[in-house]
């Protein structure tokens, strides 16, 4: 019974989305707008199922996800290390902080043409772009987290005879975790933006390429299907990440 009211609440909560979907279908079916500009939702869903069957969506999706995952993994590994090192060694901070301050506000999409000049049209340029674009939010998260790690913890660890590296790993890294995880969430959102826009601008496979290709051929219902797939994938990735982050932080009660 309670479960039923619970799911009833959920349905009520998401009714606006259903209404929007319904309005979309009706506006298009009644031809209030041209069906090329807005194909009915039902046809978009049919096109989506066709593309899943033909493997088009999955093959391009795997290409995109590989680029995104590789770039993001690099940016997390190197960005987090850099941030913690900056917080731990003052000299590093003095040297690197001005660079971080200058490059952090750089709108990362400006790097798209340069990564193409360096690494061409394939995977390499996208991975490099995502790595460069996502690294600094991770670095700043790790830096702020590690810097604010409680002095008391550091002192007591030291007085108990922990040596430097051990302390870094056992005290500083865990206390940097919450802010680091926040930085990674920003990086995750950025990685999708950079991935899709770089693939829209220049690529031979991937979601962005597929969107551009279908749009250029006037295959609009399929184009809508891919656009919506990417959008929901981004949403799902964020939700999955939040669940993982909650698990990681479980020890903090």
């Amino acid at each position, binding site marked *: 019974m309670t479960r039923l009211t619970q799911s009833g609440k959920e349905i009520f909560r998401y009714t606006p989305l259903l209404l929007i979907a319904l309005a979309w279908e009706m506006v298009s079916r009644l031809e209030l707008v041209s069906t090329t500009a807005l194909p009915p939702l039902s046809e978009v869903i049919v096109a989506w199922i066709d593309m899943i069957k033909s493997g088009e969506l999955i093959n391009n999706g795997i290409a995109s996800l590989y680029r995104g995952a590789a770039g993001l993994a690099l940016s997390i590994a190197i960005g987090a290390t850099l941030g913690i090192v900056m917080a731990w060694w003052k000299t590093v901070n003095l040297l690197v902080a001005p660079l971080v301050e200058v490059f952090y506000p750089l709108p990362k999409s400006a790097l798209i043409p340069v990564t193409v000049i360096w690494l061409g049209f394939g995977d390499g340029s996208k991975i490099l772009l995502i790595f460069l674009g996502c690294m600094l939010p991770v670095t700043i998260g790790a830096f702020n987290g590690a810097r604010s790690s409680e002095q008391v913890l550091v002192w007591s660890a030291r007085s108990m005879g922990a040596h430097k590296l051990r302390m870094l790993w056992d005290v500083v890294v865990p206390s940097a975790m919450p802010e680091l995880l926040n930085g990674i969430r920003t990086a995750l959102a950025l990685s999708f933006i950079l991935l899709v826009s770089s693939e829209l601008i220049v690529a031979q496979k991937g979601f962005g390429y597929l969107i551009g290709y279908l749009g250029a051929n006037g295959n609009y219902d399929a184009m809508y299907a891919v656009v919506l797939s990417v959008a929901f994938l981004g*949403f799902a990735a964020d939700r999955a990440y939040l669940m993982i982050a909650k698990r990681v932080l479980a020890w903090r009660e």
Partner: protein
Amino acid sequence: MARVEQGASAEATVPIWAFVLFSGLLRVFSILVLLAAWEILAQSGVFTPFQLPALSRVLMRIWQDAVSGDLAINTGLTLYRALVSFVICAVGGIAIGIAMSRNKIAHWFFDPIVSIGFPMPKIAFVPVIILWLGVYDISKISIIVIDAIFPVIAATVIAIQGVERELIWSARNMGASNRELLTQIILPAALPQIMTGLQVALPLTLIVAVVAEMLMGGYGLGGAMMTASRFANSAGVFAGIVEIAVIGYCLVKAMSLVRRRLLIWHQEAHNPSTV
């Protein structure tokens, strides 16, 4: 005795400007090293001028653009698109946020849209926007707004939720009307977090403005970079990066100045953040 005093006073006066100079130098030191390394690496011939044009050539190119007036046009257009969108995001986002926290129906309608729309990569909708609105300013501004408004809405809703109940109760007790409550109590109390939302939105408007210009062409810094890269003119591409970096830096700094100014009464003014 006199000598000692002189020495002491000299020591007291010198460090002040020397310290300022030293810390200033230290702050630009790494940046200067990076720029020098760029120039030397490019001149050394390890990379072709196509892969890495020398800094001096890039600066020449920026200078040429500035003289011909292209720089002013492109910068002006990109800034115009980004800032108009930012104003729309700020006004619209805060308005929707207020409506959501004060009106049940607005909350019911917008809540699922925001919670699903916020984490979506809305940039994927660019081809749809082009299909609907073409490639001119209106479609560029639309896609920027779609991308950058969500952080403002979310920040406003969370900020208003977080306003202390005691503040609202005591204002009510003293006879504040709903309107006074909103403008004099709730909004000022929520301002720090709303500002944070705006500070997230501003860089986003620039990121998306550049992408939209790259995809839709025309004037603007993004469009100029795309043209340069089509003609394999990498000095033009790097010039674009430098120009966009300078704009991004100035906007972000200006925004934190505005924050400090607006929140001068707030306790955070005594304890400003470092990054």
